[in-house]
């Protein structure tokens, strides 16, 4: 190779540059979580303002503190209800139909979106500051006076049924859906937010109104104003449009917790013509406000949370089995799960399972190296400011503080807490929260080719009913 040759010629204006060692770095700058304004409106709405005048834009984000978790409590087979309710909310009010709302919002160059997760239901809008008044009035109308027209429900359900059909062409979706079904067996988180064929047929406009009444109330609401708007302006807008809104139908959630499976299980879901297996392997995890959350997320980052993690390095960089592999703790208000996901060729599915098991056992049984731990701490600390780049990034974090009842100084002490974690702490949470003897292997691909080889990992069951 010609490298030595090139080196000889490597002169710069200041002489020969020694490229053999990494340069020294300067002192890091301090990063604090930016201060934001917080208050309560006269009727109990939590209002946050993240003011930033650099761009002439205003976003308002309405976040109601309940979501698709409630579907389970709204009657027999109602999953998809929260998600349909939030979707249809913007499809008509007492004085505007869906086309009028779309036309007005589009004309103002604005955006209006709505949706729900298990733990929250949201409606958001953004626009240039000069159109904020008009946009906020439309937003107010859809939140206070939704019509829930019969034909809009029919249209949305019909669309949703078709989306479900197209989603089953996606191996990752299948693996994910069957994983949730069995990890959270028969508890609210086991049902898909988007709904299922039977439940979608079963939802009526009466159900939408019931869900709306239960979720959409001032006490249950966090509003974040973001961008070129002052706390005074924001509060005044909120009081003007929402102070007369009273609705006390929101009640404390009933809680049904999933039970941990006792033995490892394998669930295969056939995907027609599959050339890869989609894997999702894991078990129950923790709820979001578990005090071990930060330690666990540092452990998980090392295990499978970033590019140089153990699992990605093993499966991609050493073995070339996959384009990518990752692990994650998904945490909800009342429960959560741990999973490893990846996509590999059918004939190396067993080997992949074994390598994943090996990595889980390794981090449970052996202390992580000093340098490896320091590297991940540096990565998390250095990367943290990237999560605070835009005012909407900051708003997302401020909202999550309120939504999950975390301490106000959570993000200010976050980096310090990360840096205090020891190798003993990592081993302790790995032992406590990773359970290699009770894994659920959800695999979508060629079931016929897989079923015999999967026996070694646990009792094998083939999913017949995808919906």
């Amino acid at each position, binding site marked *: *190779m*010609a*490298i030595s040759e*090139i080196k000889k*010629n490597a002169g*710069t204006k*200041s002489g020969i*540059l020694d*490229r*053999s*060692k*990494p340069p*020294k*770095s*300067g002192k*890091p*700058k301090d990063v604090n979580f930016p201060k934001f304004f917080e208050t309560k409106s006269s009727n109990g709405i939590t209002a946050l303002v993240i003011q930033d005048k650099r*761009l*002439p*834009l205003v976003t308002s984000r309405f976040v109601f503190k309940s979501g698709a978790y409630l579907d389970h409590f709204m009657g027999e087979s109602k999953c998809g209800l929260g998600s349909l309710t939030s979707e249809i909310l913007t499809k008509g009010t007492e004085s505007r139909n869906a*086309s009028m709302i*779309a036309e007005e*919002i*589009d*004309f*103002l*160059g*604005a955006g209006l979106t709505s949706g729900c997760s298990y733990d929250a239901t949201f409606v958001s809008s*953004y626009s240039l500051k*000069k159109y904020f008044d008009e946009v906020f009035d439309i937003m107010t109308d859809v939140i206070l006076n939704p019509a829930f027209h019969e034909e809009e429900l029919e249209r949305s359900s*019909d*669309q949703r*049924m*078709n*989306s479900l*059909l*197209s989603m089953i*062409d996606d191996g990752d979706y299948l693996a994910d859906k069957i994983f949730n079904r069995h990890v959270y067996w028969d508890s609210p988180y086991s049902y898909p937010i988007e709904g299922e064929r039977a439940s979608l047929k079963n939802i009526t406009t009466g159900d939408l109104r019931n869900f709306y009444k239960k979720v959409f109330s001032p006490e249950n609401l966090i509003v974040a104003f973001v961008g070129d708007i002052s706390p005074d302006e924001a509060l005044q807008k909120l009081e003007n449009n929402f102070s007369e809104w009273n609705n006390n139908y929101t009640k404390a959630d009933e809680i049904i917790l999933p039970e941990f499976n006792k033995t490892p299980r394998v669930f295969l879901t056939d995907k*027609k*013509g599959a050339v*890869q297996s989609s894997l999702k392997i894991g078990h129950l995890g923790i709820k979001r406000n578990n005090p071990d959350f930060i330690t666990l997320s540092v452990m998980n980052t090392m295990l499978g949370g*970033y*590019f*140089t993690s153990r699992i990605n390095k093993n499966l991609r*960089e050493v*073995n*070339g*089995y996959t*384009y990518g592999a990752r692990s994650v703790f998904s945490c909800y208000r009342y429960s959560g799960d741990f999973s490893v996901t990846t*996509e590999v060729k059918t004939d190396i599915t067993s080997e992949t399972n074994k390598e994943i098991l090996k990595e889980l056992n390794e981090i449970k049984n052996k202390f992580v190296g000093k340098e490896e731990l320091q*590297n991940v701490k*540096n*990565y998390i*600390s*250095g*990367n943290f*400011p*990237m999560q605070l*780049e*835009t005012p909407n990034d900051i708003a997302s974090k401020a909202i999550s503080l309120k939504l999950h009842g975390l301490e106000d100084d959570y993000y200010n002490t976050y980096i310090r807490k990360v840096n205090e974690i020891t190798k003993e702490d990592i081993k302790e949470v790995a032992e406590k929260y990773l359970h290699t003897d009770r894994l659920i292997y959800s695999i979508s691909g060629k079931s016929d080719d897989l079923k015999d080889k999967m026996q070694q990992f646990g009792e094998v069951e083939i999913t017949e009913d995808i919906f």
Partner: protein
Amino acid sequence: MSTNQLAEKIKYDIPSIEFKEHTLDNGLRIVMSKFGNIPIVALNTTFHTGSKDEDNDKTGMAHLLEHLMFEGSPNVPRGQFDEILTKNGGDSNAYTTRDSTSYFISVPSNHIETAMWLDSDRIYGFGITEESLEIQKDVILEEKLLYVDNSPYGSLEEVSSKKLFGESPYGWSVIGDMDDLRRIRIQDLKEFFEKQYTPGNTVISVVGDIDYDKTLKLLDKYYGSIKSGKDFLKNKFANDEIDSEITEDIYDNVHLEGKFIFYKLPETGTKDYYAMNLLNAVLSDGDSSRFFNEIEYKSGLVNEIDSSVFGMECSSIFNITAIAMKGKSLEEIEEKIDMIIDDVKSGNISDREFSKVRNRLETYFSSKRQSVISIADKFSYLKLFYNDCSRINFEILDYMSLSKSDLTETANKYLNKNQRLVLNYLPNKS
């Protein structure tokens, strides 16, 4: 920038982004921009090298080289690039298109020198080993299985490239042919690297928490000693027009039928290119747009409909994607699409509709560039393809100066049935 244009821009109240430009002695072009309020810097290195610069029997080479650029260089052993970067709080990634290859790093500003050391070393010399090559070939085979072979409608790029561009260098997909990929040897990559990854063929953009003088000194220190390389003529090719409609049925593992229509357009940055972008907003931007409102909302024919303009250096593409509702016919969907296109061709765009897309553009230009990574990417693109970084602040005028009749004229020039490709995706029979 003329005073007139400046005055015009003030009307739109869009904050400007500042920048400085420089060219190193070896020909490497540099754009720097102090931006934002977090201590992070984005470093974007873009080579004017994409899949169109490959030989037609070694397709996939540019993308393979992109993967391998993370796998070791003269002073950074295999596995150390990401290791060193992440332990300094940084992140990196890269992408390859038909025309270019971009590498980007984000890093806390106190580690910018480390980022430059890592990035420059892999341009400075070739350090890829046989072992890395074989593993990354496997990784790319899995990437292809994931995004093409195992993905619904996944063969679209490959099929449409071939049909639209035939034997020309846009005629193959970026990921390439897997038989070609298997055949590529270290020597092939080394030759490609030495020809293509030269300072004269490169733009570097540095955006974020920077000091201009210090940054320029560092850039000169790390990149200034890279040898210039031979000049060569860039592979720009003339584009054959389609003269009669091409249609093809494709059977795939899908539950919903899909219709995909492609029209060829002139290259990125031309007036017609901007006009088609604005027309595209009339057709598919927002729930009140023509396609969404008439074909999805009112007629219930599709589960999904969208259209977009894909800009490239030698030709652009306008494509329409429609996924049918179960039981609805692709013919009926095509008829509806054609009715809408005929309508805009006849000049039937209302003043309100025209104001609407202009309003939407104004919001778009005010809001889109908030992250250092995307701004750095945009600067490299503007410098490389337009040699004009000021477009970061003034590109809105390329849209706002267009009239309704420009849109109609453009539609009549390009959106004709005999100039298009229509692909119908149908469920596999089994």
